[in-house]
């Protein structure tokens, strides 16, 4: 009945959301999503048309590459024609963990240290800053400031810090002004890894602060009021109320940062290229180099899968912990 009027008014195609919204009130709601079989078939076709770009992409750039990566990780290939791929079973994986291979130590251990170090620094820093920001005015402004490194390209972050770490750079300038000797931050194998960890933590502090802020905001004010009625000091409130109630956010920051730390190698590529020696070499960088510098596609793919398993285990642990937390709540 109404529909006969519609074409005269605007035409269904041109009916904007406002109009549609207005008409909704005037019209009985059609609850049946399932029409006759022909309509249903047509809808299925339409739905898959909507999905087709995404599905096609995943077929070509997700399923196919995964299969290809599995094949390569189980093969020896020197890079000529694709027909030259020879299957070698688990040889590549065995080579990664053979005695004398540097993949487990120091590459994988560096990867874990890098991820752990970043998490520790970012978590500590963000808890401190986020809980302090909570007490201040202009919270948005402060958070924006801390957020800037996140939208900056890794090439800028890496180069600026690399330059700051140099003998004539800002960090050593401050050290010298304070009467301390210069430190060869990136050139010394002992300090190189901690130095890049600091930069990665610096760059990820902003998002950690954001998540923790959301967590802090969700703590009911009544808890604090009750505590202050009991005469609890600020430190007690922090340890007894804030931290325990912040646990889900802390956990979230912890796990996501850990995953990011395990995978990231762009910053290290920019700052040290994995050096000096293997001091800052991490698994993803090792994979990249084995493939693109040494043409060892097999062990490169195997290394990628080993790292993937590590990442997967961490993700599963995350899901498990979150689910448990959900049941507790």
């Amino acid at each position: 009945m109404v529909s006969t009027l519609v074409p005269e008014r605007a035409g269904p195609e041109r009916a904007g959301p406002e109009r549609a919204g207005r008409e909704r009130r005037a019209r009985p709601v059609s609850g049946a999503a399932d029409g006759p079989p022909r309509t249903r078939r047509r809808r299925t076709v339409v739905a898959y048309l909507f999905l087709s770009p995404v599905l096609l992409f995943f077929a070509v750039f997700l399923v196919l590459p995964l299969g290809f990566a599995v094949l390569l990780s189980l093969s020896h290939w020197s890079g000529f024609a694709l027909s030259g791929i020879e299957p070698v079973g688990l040889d590549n994986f065995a080579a990664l963990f053979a005695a004398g291979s540097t993949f487990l130590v120091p590459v994988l251990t560096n990867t874990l240290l890098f991820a752990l170090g970043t998490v520790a620094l970012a978590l500590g820093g963000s808890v401190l800053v986020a809980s302090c920001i909570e007490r201040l005015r202009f919270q948005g402004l402060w958070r924006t400031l801390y957020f800037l490194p996140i939208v900056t390209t890794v090439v800028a972050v890496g180069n600026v810090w690399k330059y700051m770490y140099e003998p004539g750079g800002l960090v050593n300038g401050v050290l010298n002004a304070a009467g301390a000797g210069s430190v060869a931050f990136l050139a010394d194998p002992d300090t190189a890894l901690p130095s890049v960890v600091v930069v990665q933590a610096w760059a990820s502090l902003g998002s950690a602060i954001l998540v923790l802020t959301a967590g802090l905001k969700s703590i009911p004010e009544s808890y604090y009021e009750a505590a202050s009625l009991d005469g609890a000091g600020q430190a007690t409130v922090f340890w007894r109320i804030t931290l325990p109630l912040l646990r889900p956010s802390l956990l979230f920051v912890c796990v996501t940062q850990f995953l990011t730390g395990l995978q990231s190698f762009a910053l290290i590529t920019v700052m040290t290229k994995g050096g000096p020696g293997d001091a800052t070499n991490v698994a993803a960088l090792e994979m990249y180099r084995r493939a693109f510098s040494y043409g060892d596609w097999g062990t490169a793919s195997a290394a990628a899968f080993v790292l993937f398993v590590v990442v997967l285990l961490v993700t599963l642990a995350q899901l498990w912990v979150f689910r448990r937390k959900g049941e507790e709540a």
Partner: protein
Amino acid sequence: MTPDGRGAGTATGGAGGTGPSRRRFSRALAAALPASLLGAGCAAPGRGTGRPGDPVVLTLLSHYGGGESKEALRGPVDEWNATHDRVKVRTTAVEFDDLLTTLMVRQAAGQGADLVHPYCLWTGQLVRSGVLAPAPPEHAAEIRRGYGTAAVGAASAGGVVHGYPTELQTYALYYNRRLLREAGIDQPPRTWLELEEAAYRTTRRDGYGNTLVQGFGLSTYDDSTTVGQTLALLASAGGAFVAADGRGTAIDSAAGRAVFALERRLVDRGASVPGINMYQAFPAGRVAMVIGAGWWTGSLTSRMGAAYRDVGVAPVPVPEAGGRPGTLCTGFLLGVNAAGPHQREAWEFLRWLNAEKVGVGSGTGASTGASHKAVGAATRMSVLQASLGSLTGRADDMRVLLGADADPNLRPFLEALAYAVPEPNVPGAQRAKSLLRKGIEELWTGRRSVDEALRTVRRQVDQEVARSW
């Protein structure tokens, strides 16, 4: 990563140098950068325009991308292009640090250059990855005839020649005459014993224990100062890094132990301070002796000015008096892409550049024209390398080019061509070299004992090299 302590400016300065030569070179390079960075060859192997009758265009990928080296290469390439209508050559360049990855990635992407100029260390890997084509018989014969054994060895894989050896570097002992004289030493050391004694006697410290002069320069600065020095000493002791069959390392031997122990003693007794930048310390007169490659003479000349007359060069000392001399030789080769469509033309160009002799004037200021009074003949590549202060493996050319007025310090490097041992170039050699460098660094910094360092290097290199076959 840099094999001989330098980037693109092959003969122009040390990697860490900030001296005048480096700066001049930088300015030249700054001007050349846009072209080399962005205009660099992105074409598929020289297919030319594909139209019949149009010339074949061969692309040449090297690390001669800046300053003097770029200019030096442009000379003969322009000459070829001016005199050949059917085949043209276009050069492209990347930084030495990016050269191996660029070679591999472009090859994998089907965009490899027709002519490639890799570091000899990578020969095995590049042959295995299908980058380097074996030299056709007539070219192989030409190469074997024209070059010394070390040069041919460096450009071969599994006994098969894969290209024309170009830039060649041998290692010898640089010493500071003034510092030796002040310690009462007139002659450069000829044996390890004399070397050690001279090192301890020339070392000087201030009241706070800071080292003012290092007797013998061991520096973790780059591949050349760590691996280069160590392998030169190893060769002088008759040892080898990679076993004869190429499937493992031979460093864990008596000779290897002797070299590691010598270096460790020098560090422990304060004659060497590995943390310094050798490319600054030696020209500044803060190092009495150091083993280095021949290209350094050029950069020292421009950096040190008048003080360069204190610099002398002698063969690498041998363990025992009267022992056979030995040293390390590194270098580059010009080869043809196995995937290129115009291999015959490419080899013809290489022969023209590397084997055809042209008349040259006296000294290193060589000219290919006839205007100079010709004192002999040399290949275009020899002229090119000599103009950069480097050598090629053609000893006869070098004797012509390094005439009477050449730097006498270049002589020991030239003489070393007769007995120098090429750097091993089996597949996996680049990785083996980085592993060795790490092992040496751990030895010098006291993190591992001589035995532990040897064992670790052996285990790691064996695993890596065996895998690469």
